[in-house]
């Protein structure tokens, strides 16, 4: 089915999630919708599939204007969507899930439904057991079920929101094969993703979104660097960070390999100096947070050693527990401020109490009040000592997190330190961080904002496709070089060594 979205606008509060977005998908094609997290892709497809009501704009299906107000309307019009987190019923069986929402008589005809289910799943070579409980299925199998269900409802345009996250390689191959069959049948597929390689492998055409707008449209194949430039756009900002780097090494790694059960990334040998800022760039979920968690002592490395300098010389921290990392002066600020960083229902003062080690049973109200009040003034937090942090704005929550960090830290690890913050708060946060650098703290931070990476880093490590690049000095970084690397053309140790045989590159 031909789908046309014209001049779609949608805002959430002050955030314009979609701004005058126009987007055309031809029948019989697989159309990629590419962009970083928060670019507005999900909002756009949710508008098309009836989960979100648009502020303005027109939806044309096969040239006719369509009123899509609820998901049921969309299904009726032939548009079905597969959500990133499958919208199904985990305790129920596959067959029950298949039947919910289907038209029919009052009494369930399980046998007929099972027959149709079996026929459809064999057509796409999916092996699903109709009597299995959803909760025991893998993410990939739940996707397959949802695809079958939507097709049985007569869907002619299928939307998939980040479908390759959390499924195995063979499931991905099966999914892509099925989608190609659907396109060949004349259906249209909208494939939402932030993974370049998936879009390049599967799609016939791609539309790139950035900050709520469509910034480009291109047939596939096309050069990866072109797509990356569209995703991140524009010329890079100029570095603003003053030189604070010292000679001493704060953190050293030897043959470090990080990862979880799905991913392993070789970091190799790395020396982070006192006062240095290292930026971790790359598409989100490429391993930056694993690196931060490993340095913070929350995750253990797969191989290699982590060495921290202390007054008594270098200490091997590789297998030490988290509290040893804390005592060694390593601070970690997670991205999800309210889930992992702060406790929403507790006040600023109560956070101070939690942080302050106290020998007695009772809370020293007066002293912690003074400390909290001092932090509020020093960090310019718009709130009171008795304000629950959940009621603070994002910027003020981040200020609170920073205020709660111990004064003397040798290494600060941050994930998206300024996400969701206004410009004033962003600048302020970095002033604080740089003043920490001046006292000798090293900083490692991950950000999906390339401007932030370029403005504040001394060196940048790029993560892409399960690998990490060598650290690259900010002076040597150009927009195209960064784009190439994020797109997957990484400069790893072996590559750099072959390009600089005289060993002039300092790692």
């Amino acid at each position, binding site marked *: 089915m031909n789908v046309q979205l014209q001049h779609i606008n949608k805002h959430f509060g002050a955030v314009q999630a979609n701004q005058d977005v126009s987007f055309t998908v031809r029948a019989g094609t697989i159309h990629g919708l590419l962009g970083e997290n928060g670019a507005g892709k999900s909002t756009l497809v949710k508008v098309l599939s009836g*989960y*979100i009501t648009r502020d303005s704009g027109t939806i044309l299906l096969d040239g006719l204007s369509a009123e899509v107000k*609820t*998901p*049921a309307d969309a*299904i009726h019009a032939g548009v079905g969507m597969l959500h990133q987190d499958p*919208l*199904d*019923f*985990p*305790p*129920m069986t596959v067959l*029950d899930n298949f*039947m*919910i*929402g*289907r038209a*029919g*008589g*009052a*009494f*369930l005809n399980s046998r007929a439904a099972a027959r149709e289910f079996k026929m459809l799943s064999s057509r796409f070579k999916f092996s699903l057991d109709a009597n299995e*409980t959803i909760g025991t299925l893998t993410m990939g199998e739940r996707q397959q079920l949802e695809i079958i269900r939507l097709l049985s409802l007569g869907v002619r345009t299928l939307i998939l929101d980040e479908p390759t996250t959390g499924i195995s390689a063979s499931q991905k191959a099966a999914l892509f094969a099925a989608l190609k069959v659907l396109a060949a049948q004349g259906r249209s597929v909208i494939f939402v993703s932030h993974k370049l390689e998936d879009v390049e492998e599967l799609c016939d055409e791609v539309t790139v979104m950035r900050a709520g707008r469509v910034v480009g449209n291109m047939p596939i194949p096309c050069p990866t660097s072109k797509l990356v430039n569209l995703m991140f756009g524009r010329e890079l900002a100029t570095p603003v960070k003053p030189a604070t780097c010292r000679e001493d090494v704060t953190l050293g790694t030897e043959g470090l390999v990080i990862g979880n059960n799905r991913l392993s990334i070789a970091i190799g040998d790395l020396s982070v100096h006192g006062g240095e800022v290292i930026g971790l760039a790359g598409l989100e979920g490429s391993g930056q947070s694993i690196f931060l968690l490993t340095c913070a002592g929350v995750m253990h490395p797969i191989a290699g050693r982590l060495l921290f300098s202390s007054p008594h010389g270098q200490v091997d921290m590789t297998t030490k527990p988290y509290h040893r990392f804390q005592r060694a002066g390593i601070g970690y600020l997670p991205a999800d401020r309210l889930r992992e960083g702060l406790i929403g229902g507790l006040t600023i003062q109560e956070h101070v109490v939690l942080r302050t080690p106290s020998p007695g049973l009772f809370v020293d109200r007066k002293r912690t009040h003074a400390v909290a009040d001092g932090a509020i003034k020093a960090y310019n937090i718009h709130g009171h000592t008795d304000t629950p942090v959940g009621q603070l704005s994002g910027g003020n929550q981040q200020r609170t997190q920073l205020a709660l960090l111990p004064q003397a830290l040798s290494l600060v690890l941050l994930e998206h330190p300024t996400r969701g913050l206004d410009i004033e708060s962003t600048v302020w946060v970095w002033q604080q961080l740089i003043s920490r650098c001046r006292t000798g703290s090293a900083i490692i931070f991950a950000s999906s904002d390339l401007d932030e990476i370029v403005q504040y880093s001394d060196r940048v490590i790029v993560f892409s496709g399960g690998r990490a690049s060598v650290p690259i000095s900010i002076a040597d970084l150009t927009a195209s070089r960064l784009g190439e690397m994020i797109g997957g053309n990484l400069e790893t140790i072996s590559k750099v060594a072959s390009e600089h045989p005289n060993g002039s590159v300092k790692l």
Partner: protein
Amino acid sequence: MDFSQIIVILATAIATATPLVFASVGETITERAGVINLSTEGTIMLAAMVGFAAALATGSVIAGLAAAAVLGALVALIVAFGAITLKQSQIAIGFVLALLCTDLSSFLGNPIVLIPGPTVPSLKVPLLQNIPLLGPLLFQSDLLVYASYVLIVLVWVFLYHTRPGLVLRSIGEQPAAAFARGSHVVRQRYFYTLLGGALVGVGGAAFSLDFKAGWTYHLTAGYGWIALAIVIFGGWNPLRAALGCYLFGILQSLANVAQSNIQSVPTQVFSVAPFVLMILVLVLTSGDWLERALAFIPPTARRSILRTIRTRAPAALGKAFEQD
């Protein structure tokens, strides 16, 4: 004790469990839709009083039952409005209503305490009552009891074999997903909360018009809480909830028998014993030790056994539905 005596005890147990059957099957329906109506204790009490008063005033048992059902639905409407529309804590609303309705029943029911009134007439089912064993056990009581049998089967068939029943289960599990598939989550939650409340109300009237005929202060004390516990014990399945009710009925019958035979023990012990035993049973059956005990059975057979014994609350139980 001879065999016929045992039959009599069991028959009494089954019959006296009838009010609990109405209440716990009703609550099962409500909770399947994702709403907890915690007011059952108060609803049963107030409905018992109102049902009796209505029957007394009109002389009709039917009118009494109808009034009790309407009262139950009205209390459920307050729960539904607070929980679904205002998205407030279902626990708080239900608990306050439980206390309020209990006290209201004493206050408003003051004039009709210990007055004789109409009761549901007994009716032996022709033919069926002559079946050996089953006849005296099930078919020699009254219409309300027979109605409860029908209710159990009807609700079970509805939940597991009809399309609207499947949708009802789906809105209690994942309202967002149900909405995505075209269900009117809010409308349906209101409907099933009211329906469940009405059945709880009938359960209350079943006390005052049948099994504890008449009205007095705190006539039904404790039964509402037990009904709530039985819903959990029954794994939100009407058949198993009914089994729980009958088990409770049997415990009560046994306590009565024991009380008349063992004079040395204070009677309070026997009136409390069924509640204590019931809670023990709940604890024992809701642990996962059964699952672990079954670990040696081959996985294919185990799957279906586990599915029947495993109890899980509807995933969205007690949570408001937010549509974005």
